[in-house]
């Protein structure tokens, strides 16, 4: 069974890089605080200092490389039956939810999404959410409307059956 999955907008790389930069900033600030508070005065050994720098540098490098691995692996698919999302860097996960179980559709935009002109569609089921990120704003609204339409159709069909009874 091979699923045909769509790629998200190319702006996603910029979005991911900005997020990585923000995370790297926080990590480096914490690292600097720990450096000045603990390591520098308490542990003057060169080896400890080297290991500390290497760990922080490794984290920074990983953060800036990850968008280029994450983007090609981030895929999604929405049809009349189900929503599918595939993502991950080391552990690649595929989430599947039947459309019939979706009871809420939301289009969300965070500050970084606003900067890059992207949005995310959140499909809520009773067993959790499926969040499809990095969508162009128009695509996000189009998807949300089409999903809402499909769900409405299912509900209407059930209501018609009820009326016939």
């Amino acid at each position, binding site marked *: 069974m091979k699923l045909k999955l769509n790629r998200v907008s190319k702006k996603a790389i910029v979005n991911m890089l900005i997020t990585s930069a923000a995370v790297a900033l926080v990590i480096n600030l914490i690292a600097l605080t720990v450096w000045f508070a603990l390591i520098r005065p308490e542990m003057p050994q060169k080896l400890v200092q080297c290991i500390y720098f290497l760990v922080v540098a490794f984290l920074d490098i990983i953060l800036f490389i990850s968008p280029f691995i994450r983007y090609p692996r981030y895929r999604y698919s929405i049809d009349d039956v189900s929503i599918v999302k595939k993502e991950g860097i*080391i552990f690649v*996960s*595929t989430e*599947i*939810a039947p459309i019939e179980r979706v009871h809420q559709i939301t289009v969300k935009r965070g500050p970084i999404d606003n900067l890059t002109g992207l949005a995310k569609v959140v499909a*809520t089921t*009773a067993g959790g959410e499926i969040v499809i990120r990095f969508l162009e704003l128009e695509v996000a609204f189009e998807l949300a409307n089409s999903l809402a339409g499909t769900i409405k159709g299912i509900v209407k069909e*059930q209501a018609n059956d009820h009326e016939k009874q």
Partner: protein
Amino acid sequence: MKNSKIRQHPSIILHECLRLMFLVLFFLIGLLQENSQTNAETFFGPSDMLAWVFCFGIFIVLAVIAIWRYFVWKRTFIMITDDAFVYDKRTRIFKKKVSLRLEQISTVNLQATILNRCFDTYTVKLDINSSVTADNTDFKLVLKKEVAHFLQREIAAARQKATEFDEAVGGTLLCDLQKQSNTPVLRFGLGYIVRHSLVATSLGTIIAFGVVLAGVSVPFLEFSQLVISLMLAVGIPATLILSVVFIIVRDIFRYYGFTVSREKGNLSVTFGLITRRSYRLSIDKVNALVIRQGVLGRISGMYYIEMLNVGMGEEKENISPIFCLCVNKFYLEWVIKTMVPEFADTLEFVKPPKKALLPQMVKGFIWFFIIGIVLVLSFVALGETVVMMVGLPLLLLIWVAVSYAAYRAKGIATNDRLLLIATGVLSRRIIIVPFAKVQKIKVIKGPVGRIVGVRRGVISILATAINQNNPTGYFMPETFEKIVAKTKADLGGF
């Protein structure tokens, strides 16, 4: 009663202020006890005065809360119409009106505490079939007994209508059972409750109780050499026995008169000695059954069943959504076939492929590595190199054994309607989920899994946080493809 505005019983004010009242009482008793130990001259000493002022302050707060609650009670009404439950709160500051279709209510729980019994009332807990509020009770009301029973009857009738509609549309197994006029009833006597306490309680719980008991009793002992020897020889077994007795007594109070009955599409579960709980739920709101076997249960061949439904059980009070106390395999099958035939089927478990052992072992290796590092560092610091030489191979052996046992414990079984997932090395857990109730499926491909060609999955259902996500272990990708296809097809849902 129908279509008329009903106020809750005034004793709800007492219910809501009870915790604070206990706090004041507890504080007062403590204060009086302290004063009785000192002489009369210091009775109104500066520190005592401060305590009395504090106590008076709490009393004033309590009075304000009680007055506020009185106004809330006076302006809060409920109404039961032909198809809806209306909750209308109209205080000057807060206004809330909720209209809920009766068939949307998944569980009606009638609870009779001592306070309820004094006023001839029930605490009625209503739960909606929603994941957003699955961990909390949606509506908690205090109603006169006849009003509570009326509400329960109306909700059951509305749900009956809804499932009759399902019968017309889908024609499912449930509907065949609905046509039956007999009402199966299951009653568990005192012996069954004691057996359940002994078999279902995990070793961890007994040890935890033992530790608490020991912690309470140790400060009263003087630590001479003799006492320490006595504690080791007699104290530890005695504490464990006391813990078991305590758990049995607790379970007798909790599960006394455990009765399960089914009337067409509705299930009733009633239990409790002092606080009597009575759950009434529609079978179509049951999302899964969990068959559990603790360590002692595995030795004695006993099982108990939990029912996953929004509203069953009380996580805050550590009461699991129990549906059937400990029984043997034959009786277990009988209970499922009689009470919940929608979940009954004879299925063969598919075991994980041999190559699933590798990712399972790598997963366990992380723990082995962390514990190993700690052990090596500790032994090097203590200079116990000989112990380390013995300890490390032993740890390696434990890692291999546990990983293999975890690999062997996993299993998946499916038919057109049901999905069964078995997990657990010491305590076994088998969850039975109808495909119609599967909400989301997650299939994860890790680096080791990618090499050997296996995946692991997580099946999400509508339940409280603890039971929402159910991991499967490592299986072939085709197994998950089959699960996804059946969930999408939604075959034979009820």
